[in-house]
């Protein structure tokens, strides 16, 4: 697992303040990593401040292209979610390329 330092993130390595980000299939291979622990910045306004969204983390992690493609979906804690969902510490966020099962 890679722990990538990002500018907007806190220095704490407490797992309780992190989001685990996962990539799959072609997206994973294009970016060259499958999992990262991302530190959430401490809430400036206290604990009531909403966490980052998947769209914000997509850009923060420099995932390509800059604007998430229409076919890519997100899952939080293994449930489909929306790009503007609010993430919380301890969440697992996955970016899912277009699905092709069956």
């Amino acid at each position, binding site marked *: 697992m890679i722990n990538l330092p990002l500018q907007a993130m806190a220095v704490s390595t407490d797992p309780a303040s992190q989001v685990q980000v*996962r990539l*799959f*299939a*072609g997206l994973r*291979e294009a970016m060259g990593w499958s999992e990262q622990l991302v530190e959430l910045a401490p809430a400036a306004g206290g604990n009531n401040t909403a966490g980052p969204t998947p769209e914000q983390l997509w850009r923060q992690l420099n995932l390509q292209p800059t604007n998430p493609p229409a*076919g890519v979906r997100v*899952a939080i804690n*293994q*449930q489909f979610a929306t790009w503007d969902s609010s993430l919380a510490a301890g969440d697992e966020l*996955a970016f*899912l*390329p*277009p*699905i*092709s*099962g*069956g």
Partner: protein
Amino acid sequence: MLAIQLEAEQFEPLSALAEWHQLLAARLGIRPAAESHFVGRVRPSGANDAPLTALELEHYPGMTEACIASLAAAAAGQHGATAVLVIHRIGLVLPGDAIVLVAVAADRRGPAQRCCQELLEALKHEAPFWKREWSQGVGSWITGNTPL
């Protein structure tokens, strides 16, 4: 009654159905009056018509199983099906091998057939699987589904 399996190894759909029939008989006492089955197999050629060496199926452990179970329960509930079996391959699958088996048991043919088709389409579009075609040593991720 739902039975969901992800198989990392080759499976034989007719043998799997025979085992499911035994399970149905044991659990229900009698086999339902109608059944609908679908078996999907790997084509011998890929999207560019080149001979296919294998099809690789990646999944999201935990979420994929939960998604299939949720989709199966929803389809069974909507159509009043008695039992659903889904077996889906993961890993490398060779041309001609089964990728997916969907079987639905119900009291009548209509619900069985409609539930089977609807669940199959849901699996294709909503369950987190990704296919990569391997041909002549080169792998290509598939970004969509074949037409119905």
